[in-house]
């Protein structure tokens, strides 16, 4: 049976896109209530892995179990908050209208109130009446992130949520992620900037469709004997290349 301490269990996952093997037998567990960072260079398969967890990716092999159900199960649809890399929000609606709509689709009790809550969470209250299309790129990304926070998701899958944001805002969002995790929500956050890795409870390092490491930041530093996580990642890449 499923382990209730594990939010996401990925086992031997293989994904082929456009004739190329994008994920090559990836296996790992994400513990419940943790903030797990998914790191790796652009094009390494992070987004594909996240899509497989959310259940929108056609997979070639392996299993993905999310909150005890196979990924993509209808039961999971109001339990996972997913924010894609590109802001998937309606440009021709105001921030409030857009979030109220998604809250209605999630069938929360009071869509308008829930929309207000998440707008405040991503610090867009001052822009709530603006059209999404008139927001800056960073603001639009936050509006898209806010959709993932609606309702009471047990798992948040966030694809590069802090890209292009100023350092203060980035710091605020990471504080928000940890606050959400303290309530028992599991977060899987992808990034290609290594300085965000230190703020994660666990790290998954990917390169060319293969998982190079699944460890805590401390464990990774100890294992590679590097104090800097960027250097630790480089060390792992060299080790895997030497082994190949």
């Amino acid at each position, binding site marked *: 049976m499923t382990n209730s301490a594990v939010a996401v269990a990925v086992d031997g996952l293989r994904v082929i*896109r*456009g004739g190329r093997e994008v994920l090559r037998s990836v296996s790992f567990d994400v513990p419940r209530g943790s903030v797990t960072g998914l790191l790796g260079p652009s094009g390494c398969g992070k987004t594909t892995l996240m899509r497989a967890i*959310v*259940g*929108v*990716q*056609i997979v070639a092999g392996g299993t993905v179990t999310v909150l005890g159900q196979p990924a*993509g199960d*209808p039961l999971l*649809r*109001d339990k*996972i908050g*997913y924010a*894609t890399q*590109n*802001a*998937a*929000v*309606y*440009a*021709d*609606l*105001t921030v409030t*209208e857009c979030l109220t*709509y*998604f809250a*209605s*689709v*999630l*069938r929360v009790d009071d*869509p308008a109130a829930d929309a207000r809550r998440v707008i405040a969470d991503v610090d867009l209250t001052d822009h709530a009446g603006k*059209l999404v299309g008139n927001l800056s790129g960073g603001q639009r990304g936050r509006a898209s992130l806010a*959709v993932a926070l609606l309702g009471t998701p047990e798992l948040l899958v966030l694809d590069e949520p802090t890209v292009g944001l100023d350092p203060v805002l980035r710091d605020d969002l990471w504080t928000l992620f940890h606050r959400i995790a303290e309530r028992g929500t599991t977060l899987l956050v992808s990034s290609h900037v290594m300085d965000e890795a230190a703020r994660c409870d666990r790290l998954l390092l990917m390169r060319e469709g293969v998982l190079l490491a699944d460890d805590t930041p401390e464990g990774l530093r100890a294992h590679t004997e590097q104090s800097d996580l960027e250097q630790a990642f480089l060390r792992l890449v060299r080790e895997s290349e030497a082994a190949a």
Partner: protein
Amino acid sequence: MSTVINPGITLATAKRILNQLRHDPRTIAMLLLVPTVLMVLLRFVFNNEMAFSRTAPALLGVFPFVIMFLIASITTLRERTTGTLERLMTLPMGRLDLLFGYAIAFGVLATLQVTIATTVSLLWLGLDIAGSVWTLLLITILDALLGMALGLFVSAFATSEFQAIQFMPVFALPQILLCGLFVPRDAMANVLNWLSDVMPLSYAVDALTAVTVTENWDGTLVRNLIVVAACAILALMLGAATLRRRTP
């Protein structure tokens, strides 16, 4: 299951689509007025009430068909390319919730559009029909919904807005050429007649012509209406089949 309709989500979706349009007043103005302006133009082109009355009812069905086809294919294509469709597919939204949401929103618009064009044609342009105005409205709204449903369906095969726009001449223009508007259907060569027999717009135009000349609801009229409605529903169902939760 995803085939179940959730009225709350369906209505929220219809409201959302109308809200999107509300922020675009120019589109709304064009949607509501362009068919009317074209009818006025047509009236002066004929410069003869009799000739106008013969062609106008068919065009009252064709204009909304074309406009709804375009609007629906572009809006759904946008929903696919901006990632909002994928996002909705990860939420507790049935595919039919989305499609019926679109059908309701565009149905409301089509009703307004057709009502304005018909009212202007009857009151000021001298359109004279033997049948009931309500039957005329019913057929034209069905036409608009058919256009919308076909637009939704074909947008699945477009990967860019350029392609989506070109599907209009591909899917809509042959139907307009063969529907009996230019040449009576039974005067066409056999092959063209057969083609026109499998095109839903032909049945809509037949029904509209019937309304012009008689006030009777005969079996042919009922059959034509059923064909148009069934084609709209079929196109919606095919559209639903193109909404995939999992993609490569």
